[in-house]
């Protein structure tokens, strides 16, 4: 580098953001792209269910009963003679809703709780983490059952209850992340420039913890969707006439030998979605994981 001279390069500085670079890197990772495309297709299909579903949502044909996949019914029909493809589309709406909303609830609570505890350290951290340990020790499944039994079953309660179960791990992950990032010198530099702790937390620390957050989210969504299915299996989750992939799978599992398609198609829908979620998640984490290359 020559000695500093005062010449000003005139070309315009256009805003290149972290996300633009991440998108470029993501496109190179074709597994993640496949995952993203599949996910988009599923979300589109599910949200457009009322318009693209081949049959009326609850059109029953009792005389028909359970029939194998045919031209009329691509995925066959359930024991009520209702078109399985329609059921899967409508069921998908709830399963994905549960998956994303409950995970979002878990993410928001978990991230803020974990980062505050991690950043403050000392007694505050001890108290907050003791609270998390208390919640960890509670047999949460029992509380969800009791909550469902006591307050009856409505969707929002289900989301909140599941969200309340999942945020604990997120809080722990965030805490360790924040604690290690806090030691980094750029946080000390930020303090020395006079930034307030809150700004440092949200502008400097949390963006650098995005990697583990992404990984955790891609692991939580499947477990949340399965938790909903588990509750519905026990008769405590989704109520008819609403349905969800989990419910369809549990009904399908009962008559697996006679009507295998009642199990295969909802199972495939769930597995496909979760696979693409995981591939996308891994891809995103690598893309956002800006590794400083030493030499």
């Amino acid at each position, binding site marked *: 580098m020559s000695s500093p001279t005062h010449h000003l390069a005139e070309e315009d500085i256009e805003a290149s953001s972290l996300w633009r670079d991440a998108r470029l890197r993501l496109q190179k990772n074709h597994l993640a792209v496949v995952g993203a495309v599949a996910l988009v297709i599923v979300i589109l299909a599910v949200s457009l269910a009322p318009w693209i579903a081949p049959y009326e949502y*609850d059109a*029953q044909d*009792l*005389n028909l*009963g*359970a029939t194998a996949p045919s031209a009329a019914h691509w995925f066959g029909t359930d*024991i*009520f*003679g209702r078109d399985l493809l329609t059921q899967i589309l409508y069921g998908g709406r709830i399963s994905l809703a549960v998956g994303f909303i409950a995970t979002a609830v878990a993410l928001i609570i978990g991230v803020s709780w974990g980062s505050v505890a991690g950043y403050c350290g000392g007694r505050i951290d001890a108290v907050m983490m003791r609270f998390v340990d208390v919640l960890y020790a509670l047999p949460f499944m029992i509380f969800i059952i009791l909550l*469902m*039994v006591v307050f*009856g*079953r409505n969707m929002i309660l289900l989301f909140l209850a599941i969200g309340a179960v999942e945020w604990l791990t997120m809080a722990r992950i965030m805490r360790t992340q924040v604690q290690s990032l806090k030691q980094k010198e750029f946080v000390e530099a930020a303090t020395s420039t006079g930034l307030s702790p809150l700004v440092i937390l949200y502008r400097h620390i949390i963006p650098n913890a995005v990697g583990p957050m992404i990984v955790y989210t891609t692991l939580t969504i499947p477990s949340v969707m399965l938790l909903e299915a588990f509750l519905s299996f026990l*008769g*405590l989750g989704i*109520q*008819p*006439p609403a349905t969800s992939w989990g419910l369809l799978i549990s009904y399908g599992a*009962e*008559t697996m030998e*006679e*009507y295998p398609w009642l199990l295969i198609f909802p199972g495939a829908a769930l597995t496909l979605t979760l696979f693409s979620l995981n591939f996308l998640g891994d891809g995103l984490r690598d893309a956002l994981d800006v590794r400083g290359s030493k030499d």
Partner: protein
Amino acid sequence: MRISYSSTLVALLALTLSACGGGEKNVVSGNATGYLHYGNGAEPQGIDPHLVTGVPESHIVRALFEGLAVKNPITLEPEPGVAERWEISPDGTVYTFFINPQAKWSNGEPVTASDYVWSWERALHPETGSLYAYMLFPVVNAEKFASGAIDDFAEVGIKSLDAQTLRISLNAPTPYFLQLMDHYSTFAVHPETVLKFGGMSDRFTLWTRPENIVSNGAFTLKEWSLNRQIKVEKNPHYWDKSSVALEGVYFYPTENVVSEERMFRSEQLHVTQGIPLGKIPNYRAVQNSPYVQAPYLGTYYYLINTKKPPVDDVRVRKALSYAIDRDTLTRTVLRDTAIPAYSITPPDTLGYNPPKLFSFDPEQARALLAEAGYPDGQGWPGLEITYNTNEDHRKIAVAVQQMWKDELGIDVSITNQEWKVYLNTVSQGEFQVARRGWIGDYVDANNFLDLFLANGGNNNTGYANAEFDDIILNQAPKAASREERYQLFFQAETMMMQEMPIIPFYTYTSKRLIHPSVNGIYPNLMDSLNLKYVRLDPNQRLDLTTE
């Protein structure tokens, strides 16, 4: 390093798996040793005749204890039990039972009349809290004693004249009284054994433990490992032990009906308690199929809360009932495992047949609905069906909802409530239409019709008709003959059904799988099982090849 490592692992896994071979089949070993393996449906609450309710419990209590009179396994008519004979006074209000001197407790002591006096006092005592206390209410002063109005049991109409004779006086002639003697809540228990482990009406005593229990039935309790199995063996002191073929019985708490069917198919069970609806067509297609179905003394119906609009209008109630195609419902959703019902009492209840006032008639239903002010469903304020979380109730509710939508153009919502919440909702009357099933306690129309008495405990419909009450409470019991009595019941049932306080759907059927090696389980209306008559034929194996 990699190849050798993983291949040894796979070999190891395969080895352990094949070595087990699934173990000895229960049915095969059972047939050889005379032990029946019985799927009992749930872990019984207990086996104290005066404390328990529920079908799984009744199977075990009836194996261990025996009433004064028992039901004939085929005709269900009363036959001698602990009492070898009995006399009924001309006016039908005094019964004298003569106890069989051979009838003994499992510890060898004879069964005496005073055992019964003591046992009925225990059954009726408020603190015992027996839910079936009302079975003995036909006895003089029994209801007063049970509700605590009187506390001297001597005033209750049961006396032991001597060790072998028991006299019972009733409030009014009760033609079905002998059948009550076969209901386990009226069985006798061994007073000394009960008192040895606690007070007369203590619920926490250990007298029913295998090592303590004394019973007078065909079998005695040998072993009870919680939630695994209950083992009973032949009672050497039973008075009729010569006609008991089985050496013993294993009862299994097969709660999950899907798993139970799998256990049957892999020959781990002789008899199952139920069967998944989806599997019935396959089993019907099998030669000499193990699937056994028989009418069962019970009706599935919807309660209507006649106080709540829009179902406070009888025309609306009729419209709702006429719009249901019961034949299609039972054929498709219930796989022909139920008989369409058009009234409360099941058909052929010891000769009595209920009236049939209507059939599937959509046009008339629509006309009635229009007449009531909702032509083709316009202005329909909506209706809610409430049911308790259960797979079959869900299927029926969804089907009915659809039928009413298609036939009457009305929108109906379904809410599914957890069992206790549901009971609470129904008893508080916070429902419009609610699912209900009633299983008869004894084979007599009275047990169904008394559900609709104005102040009957189980009448949640709000239906009240003085004339109806008068026939049931006063006229029918005094009827000279059975025909006259049935004639009065028919008249009362017609009057009630014209008001349509309920929407009957179907009469239950008992449906189970019975291994070909088992005979002596006779299908009857009460689905009452008397293990005394069961025999095992070892050289019959399960063959599920379809025709």
